[in-house]
């Protein structure tokens, strides 16, 4: 019975495993799903880091991508033409944290109260808690970081969806895994 279950599980994920070199499969489910969509990277990455869909739940993306919300996107005008808006919304919803198999997306999703719809990734309880040690000296007063919105300033493997401690290199300070114990 156990064997059968295992076999079913392997079969379920095998199509994903086939798409990638064997070893990277293990990484793929650890972090959040990387975004490899050109329209997404172009449209969103033009102004800020193109945050992965798996960093927020479906309800957050649905709200953020409303035309009236995009018109005032954290104080900026981020209007898209309707065709692009719908395509990007679908992409975000399909890969959102609350339906993801990726471990970190699951943690993100579980940390958000059901009645909350965070629009800022930095307000997700799991992410907020993880960034508590990031005091002003590392972020706000660090000219190469400035704000937590610049994820890729320190998360050097973020494009692969990896956020592990040993991939965090804080400019002017060094690897987080080495500083944190001092």
């Amino acid at each position, binding site marked *: 019975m156990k064997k059968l279950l295992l076999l079913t599980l392997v079969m379920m994920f095998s199509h994903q495993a086939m798409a990638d070199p064997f070893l990277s499969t293990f990484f793929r489910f650890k972090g959040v799903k990387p975004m490899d969509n050109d329209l997404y990277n172009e449209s969103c*990455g*033009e*102004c800020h880091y193109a945050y992965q869909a798996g960093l927020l739940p479906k309800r957050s993306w649905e709200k953020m991508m409303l035309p009236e919300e995009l018109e005032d996107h954290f104080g900026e*005008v981020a209007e898209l033409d309707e065709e692009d808006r719908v395509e990007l919304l679908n992409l975000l919803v399909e890969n959102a944290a609350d339906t993801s198999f990726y471990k970190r997306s699951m943690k993100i999703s579980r940390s958000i109260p059901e009645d909350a719809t965070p629009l800022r990734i930095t307000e997700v309880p799991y992410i907020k808690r993880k960034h508590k040690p990031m005091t002003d000296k590392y972020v706000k007063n660090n000219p190469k970081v400035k704000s937590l919105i610049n994820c890729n300033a320190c998360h050097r493997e973020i494009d692969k969806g990896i956020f592990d401690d040993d991939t965090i290199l804080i400019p002017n300070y060094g690897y987080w895994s080495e500083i944190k114990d001092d």
Partner: protein
Amino acid sequence: MKKAIILVATLFVTPMLAQANVIEERLDAYKAEGAGPFSAEAGKAMWTKEIPFEKKGEIIKGRSCATCHNADPTTPGKHAKTGKVIAPMTLGAVSINRKGEEEPRFSTVKKVEKWFKRNCKWTYGRECTPQEKGDFLMYFKSL
């Protein structure tokens, strides 16, 4: 040898021609909407002009193109909030995309219109008229 020179020259000139085409296409489109003639001088005057507007009951002032693009548009600008570096507005300028690849400044009609819409709304609280857009493009051409 001659062929090689022509080929290299073509490689350099083509991106600029492609951009010129986008700009000419836009100017024709604005004319078709009843605007024109366009003037680089008018575009230059508008570039640093601040026009206060009301948004959600709040008066927003102190915004012009120069807020992010600099008073001298031939220099790289900086986004007022995010600090993102913005390529100069000259025809020969290149932007660096997210993948670190170079792209011509005025690459597609879609992009030009997208940014006119967003930036006019941020700066003036309304979209720009075809006349204003034509004047801006003439100004960029004159740089």
